[in-house]
């Protein structure tokens, strides 16, 4: 089994707000992240796939295919977007780094053919990242 990781960057804005909580509870829970005008990050994404090395190609995965899927399913949807308003998953889920990692997994996992998705890592800043392994 070999693991391969591809990095990608995207810039997006978001804010944290739960409509079921009062304005005071939202402010208390989310602090500055609750500002409805949003704020932004340069997100760094690391997508790790695993699989056996194909004896003919020497590849775990066709990198071009992985890059195309990543561009189409994730970057086109999230880069330079206001996540809360422009990405459907975040109409009902708060776009925390945790939920972004889950959304990226859900967008990629069904579309990878040869290799199996192992981990999605999303850095919100260089000091904070989330790993999602597809665990229930």
């Amino acid at each position, binding site marked *: 089994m070999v693991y391969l990781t591809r990095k990608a960057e995207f810039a997006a804005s978001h804010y*944290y707000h*739960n409509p*079921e909580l009062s304005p005071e509870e939202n402010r208390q829970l989310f602090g500055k992240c609750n500002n409805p005008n949003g704020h932004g990050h340069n997100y760094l994404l690391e997508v790790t796939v695993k699989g056996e090395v194909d004896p003919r190609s020497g590849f775990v995965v066709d990198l071009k295919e992985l890059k195309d899927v990543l561009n189409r399913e994730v970057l086109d949807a999230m880069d330079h977007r206001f996540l809360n308003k422009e990405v459907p998953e975040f109409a009902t889920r*708060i*776009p925390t*780094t*945790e939920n972004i990692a889950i959304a990226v997994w859900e967008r990629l996992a069904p579309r990878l053919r040869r290799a199996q998705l192992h981990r999605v890592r999303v850095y919100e800043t260089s000091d*904070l*990242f989330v*790993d999602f392994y597809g665990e229930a």
Partner: protein
Amino acid sequence: MKAHLTRRYRFSASHRLHSDAMSPEENQRTYGKCNNPHGHGHNYALEVTVSGPVDAATGMVCNLVDLDGFVAQHVLARFELENLNTLPEFTRRVPTTENLCAVIYDVLRDGFAKAQVEKVRLEETMMNSFEYAGGAELRP
């Protein structure tokens, strides 16, 4: 949905690697420059990984305010700008980064209740780092 969250912190401290169980020559041979009796310092970078279900109401594994508060009070305040050899944790253990990593892991595991503590990763310099997860096998 279970996710893993990692937060990075920094602190600076000094140490000297020396074992009372070894002769001066053996200490010198084992620890080299790190055996200098006056000690030396590092800018450590600490990565704490916690896990848990993503809360449906908050979208979070745990509130970063809680994690930051715990680490600031129980880890950073304890080691920042200290000579590690003078601390009670290292009266009988050599303050290698392996041992420091394990001490920090134990502090978190025993005291931080808001999420599962998975792993502590400690960078001593840009060129070396250590990981400890309580003896459990690390993820590939």
